[in-house]
């Protein structure tokens, strides 16, 4: 870690992600094959699609968690993405035996960094940015769902990776908490290459520089939709609402033709 840069700031410039001819088979079913996708560097791409279409599988493939997948995932220079990706799932995956601060410091602990003052200060700084300064000593069981997901966000930022993959991180939260956390995530992840998988068209339009819809068997990607302006956008914007209607239509069309079970890799 370079001392000149706090982990909450994005590394410059964030690499773009290029997927070429990626495919995934699950038993006899082809989830997707020959799929190409570019995630522009430093931008947020949102991925929508019916349940079971393979969105999470695609995300896990980029994270290097899908074994037996085919195709290439690399940056614009043909370099591997290993060690440059962090992952935020729908479940916060907090360790119940660790304190809030301990959970944020999980990554350094797993890499054997030891607990030095700089790391602890950086973790405290991130907890302050997600609004949890006073909760560092609490255990996850003492937190609300929204607070837990804030800790998970701080833990993700602590990794300080240029590429951040998020798999429906806000879907289990109530509307108000989700709204707050979307804005917080957009602000804190600015400048990183983000792929956000979501079920919620409005969330995608609020947070994405680009919105893609995944549909079909085997799944393919529809042309990107690019809402105007910078995220997080105002959800009351009439242009956004018009695009939401458009997205809902293409989603319901997509749903008619899928019959692939949700695949856990």
């Amino acid at each position: 870690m370079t001392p000149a840069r706090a982990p909450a700031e994005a590394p410059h410039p964030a690499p773009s992600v290029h997927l070429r001819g990626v495919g995934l088979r699950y038993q006899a079913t082809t989830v997707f094959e020959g799929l190409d996708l570019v995630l522009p560097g430093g931008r947020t791409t949102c991925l929508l699609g019916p349940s079971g279409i393979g969105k999470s599988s695609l995300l896990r493939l980029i994270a290097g968690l899908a074994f037996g997948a085919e195709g290439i995932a690399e940056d614009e220079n043909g370099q591997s993405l290993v060690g440059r990706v962090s992952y935020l799932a729908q479940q916060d995956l907090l360790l119940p035996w660790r304190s809030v601060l301990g959970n944020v410091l999980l990554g350094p602990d797993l890499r054997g960094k030891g607990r030095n003052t700089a790391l602890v200060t950086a973790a405290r700084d991130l907890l302050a940015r997600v609004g949890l300064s006073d909760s560092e000593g609490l255990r996850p069981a003492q937190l609300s769902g929204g607070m837990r997901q804030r800790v998970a966000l701080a833990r993700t930022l602590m990794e300080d990776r240029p590429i951040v993959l998020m798999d429906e991180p806000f879907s289990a939260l109530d509307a108000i908490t989700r709204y707050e956390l979307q804005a917080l995530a957009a602000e804190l992840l600015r400048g990183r290459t983000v792929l956000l998988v979501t079920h919620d068209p409005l969330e995608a339009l609020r947070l994405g520089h680009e919105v893609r819809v995944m549909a079909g068997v085997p799944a393919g990607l529809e042309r990107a939709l690019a809402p105007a302006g910078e995220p997080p956008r105002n959800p009351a914007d009439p242009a956004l609402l018009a695009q939401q209607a458009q997205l809902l239509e293409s989603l319901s069309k997509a749903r008619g033709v899928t019959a692939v079970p949700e695949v856990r890799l």
Partner: protein
Amino acid sequence: MSALRALIVFLGLILVWQGVVMLTGAPHFILPPPLRVAQALAENWPLLLQHAGITVLEILLGLVLGAALGCASALIIATQRLARRWLLPVLVVSQAIPVFALAPVLVLWLGYGLASKVAMATLIIYFPVTAAFFDGLRRTDPGWLDLARTMSGGPVRTLWHIRIPAALPALSSGLRVATAVAPIGAVVGEWVGSSAGLGYLMLQANARMQIDLMFAALFVLALFAVGLYGAVDTALRRAMPWQADDQNTA
């Protein structure tokens, strides 16, 4: 409140006991009345204490050894594929042999002293601890393992920071079972061949028709077993404060 309940149950059982003695008119060398047992307890407490000390030592040594060996085995089986393939079937099949059947052999090999009883207690504790901890180690939430992988965590540190702590609740149920069965191992060992201990004292008293002394020894053993279980249970709860409190089921 729970202490009061326990006391009421205890007194109730004594009353039932006294009732059975009075109703059946059983002679005191078959079923001594509670008061006679209390008397035997009061008269023989130095003797009881001396033998209890030995049995307690056997149980505690067996518990420590069995738990340590069990934990080490579970870690090896969980992390080494080769060990899992070769040792796990052996371990499972070995459970088909009743440990009690081994007691005479252990006494033959290890003698009448402490060692054969500690070995018995260790053997009886080893399997529940190994099985429970191994089960916990292989049931780590796959989400946590994925997270560790994206964080570039190596297998050893992932084991230390995630898999072992995640398996501790399973290990603690294994340890609770082990604590409950440990006295059985020690006492059976003493019955088969020994020159000291509460099991030895029971056999001696039985042979001399001192049934009240036998019951007194049994009482001391039960008291220690319950105390030991309570202490282990409390220690495990304290060590794992993140575990869901089951107060509403208690």
